[in-house]
């Protein structure tokens, strides 16, 4: 049995707790949170040991792993504490708010041969896995562009009292929503070398962003556009969509299905034909040991457990891979502050002055 401790019992923490506790190879032996009421409740009804201090939990509970689902700004310190204690770590996304910290933690985990994983669950969604399989096979030829979208109804009025509404704590649609499509694009194309034209827009929030629009660029001139809003009242829940354009066709995928158009099916996986192909989630999804809110959430925890059992330090969504998303997030924050005024309407820049010249109005 793998002995797990939960750190943070908000929306993600409770659902991870439920799913991993139901895993046949796992026992959740301890939980840690700042809410005394919640801890009292869980202890009384389930008998689990409770702590309000993570270090105490690590010292007393003989854990094999922790699952960290705290506000993003707390991830780095807690991950370090867990790694120092020699336990394997599953951390919610984004991994950390500073890519250099992410790199240091990745190295620390590697040096201790610990299993690490970050909660980018979309990589466990059947349709998005199918996109990866198609791209790896070269089915749509040379990829020129990806459109990565995510919309949902998180902030629909001008208030909110949790950490998610505070940029300083890692809230905002960039870290909360955009991180997911960014991570998928990283999976498909690798980490981009540059981002341009990033807009961190506000619809309702005062302290953070509700919308993210940006262009990612790779050295070979492949591009991706990101369009994200968590203030979209038309959506019932977060919906993510990826469209990939290639020289031999196009792929569109969301949680429900993966649609592929192929000019020529020679390079495509077996079963794919010239023209339109549709694969539904029912065909692309494997059964999970326990279901709460989507197979991908159970599947990612199952992968984590299996990697601990097998001692597989590298694997899907390890710290190294999640650091790539942190790098792009940091690039977008920097780009959003870049001075673009030189190319405003009516003041078109002269070619020899470059696209990103600093504002030097006379």
């Amino acid at each position: 049995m793998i002995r797990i401790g939960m750190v943070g019992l908000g929306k993600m923490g409770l659902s991870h707790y439920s799913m991993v506790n139901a895993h046949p190879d796992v026992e959740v032996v301890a939980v840690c949170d700042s809410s005394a009421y919640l801890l009292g409740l869980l202890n009384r009804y389930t008998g689990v040991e409770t702590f309000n201090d993570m270090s105490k939990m690590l010292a007393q509970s003989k854990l094999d792993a922790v699952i960290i689902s705290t506000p993003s700004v707390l991830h780095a310190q807690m991950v370090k504490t867990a790694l120092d204690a020699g336990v394997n770590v599953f951390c919610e996304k984004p991994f950390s708010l500073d890519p250099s910290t992410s790199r240091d933690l990745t190295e620390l985990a590697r040096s201790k041969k610990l299993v690490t994983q970050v909660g980018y669950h979309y990589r466990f969604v059947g349709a998005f896995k199918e996109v990866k399989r198609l791209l790896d096979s070269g089915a749509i030829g040379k990829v020129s562009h990806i459109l990565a979208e995510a919309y949902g109804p998180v902030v629909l009025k001008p208030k909110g009292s949790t950490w998610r509404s505070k940029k300083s704590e890692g809230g905002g649609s960039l870290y909360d929503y955009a991180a997911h499509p960014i991570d998928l694009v990283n999976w498909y194309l690798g980490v981009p070398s540059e981002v341009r034209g990033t807009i961190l827009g506000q619809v309702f929030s005062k302290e953070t962003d509700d919308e993210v629009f940006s262009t990612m660029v790779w050295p070979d001139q492949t591009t991706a556009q990101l369009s994200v809003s968590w203030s979209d009242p038309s959506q019932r829940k977060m919906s993510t969509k990826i469209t990939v354009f290639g020289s031999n066709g196009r792929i569109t995928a969301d949680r429900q299905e993966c649609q592929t158009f192929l000019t020529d099916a020679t390079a495509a996986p077996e079963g794919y034909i010239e023209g339109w192909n549709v694969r539904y989630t029912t065909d692309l999804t494997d059964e999970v040991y326990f279901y709460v809110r989507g197979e991908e959430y159970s599947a990612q925890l199952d992968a984590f457990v299996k990697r601990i059992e097998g001692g597989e330090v590298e694997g899907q969504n390890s710290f190294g891979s999640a650091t790539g998303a942190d790098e792009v997030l940091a690039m977008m924050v920097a780009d959003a502050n870049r001075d673009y005024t030189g190319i405003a309407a009516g003041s078109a820049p002269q070619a020899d002055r470059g696209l990103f010249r600093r504002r030097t109005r006379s």
Partner: protein
Amino acid sequence: MKFQDLSAVIDVLDAAYDEGIHTFMCTTHDRVGEIVDYMRTKPERYAEQIFYPGMPYAHKYANAMTEDGMVGAIKRFLPDGGLLDAAFKGGMSVAKKDIEGITTLLIDAEMKMFQGLPTPVIFLQNVVVDLLLGLGFKDAFRIFADHVRKKYNAEPGFITMNLPSLLEVLKEVGVENPVVCSNINKVGFRMSGGGVAAYEKALNEYEFQAIAMSVFASGAIPPREAIEWVCKLPNLKSIVFGASSRANIHSTKILVDEYWVD
């Protein structure tokens, strides 16, 4: 998009009613309240209509949790927020009656829209059932069952994606002969905890009132094949299906009439 318009929903419900399908299993979304209000104005037209509410409308809570945190979300949906303020401030001991009180208040808040209408079965939605099941919060099922039996004279219903393990826990906490709705389809789609074989075993071994949903496995199984297979299962009480038009209600009803043996 079609269902944006309330009258489009009413048309589908009318079609079902006229086919002899008088049970409407629904969420407690605000729009359901509008449908219910409409039906209340035409008691003759809907004389036989009964409702199987499924609560809570989970996205409402999930989104509220993102905005206000868990405690904030619960407070937002309780009729009297002041009641809990003291309890939620740390340090206060957690009495079981607190939790029973909160749970029953939340149930009552969700049931308000059905006041005066027949709700012979009241369901707890799968997101909540399966979350509690995984957490090992077993007493919650008992609290829910006792409250809907006592206050609403209704049968407690549970929707789950993990039928075998839920049945074991319901038995353990003494919820007798519950109504349990789960995915039951020929291809084992979203039948967690052992797939078709384990579900057939559960149907044979546990005393419960089984309702099958997702019998077409989101369209993966042709209708005739799906209905023929599910109707042969032992101890199935009914089938719930989603419908968007008069035509598909009619064709599904004909298939069920053909294969269903009482």
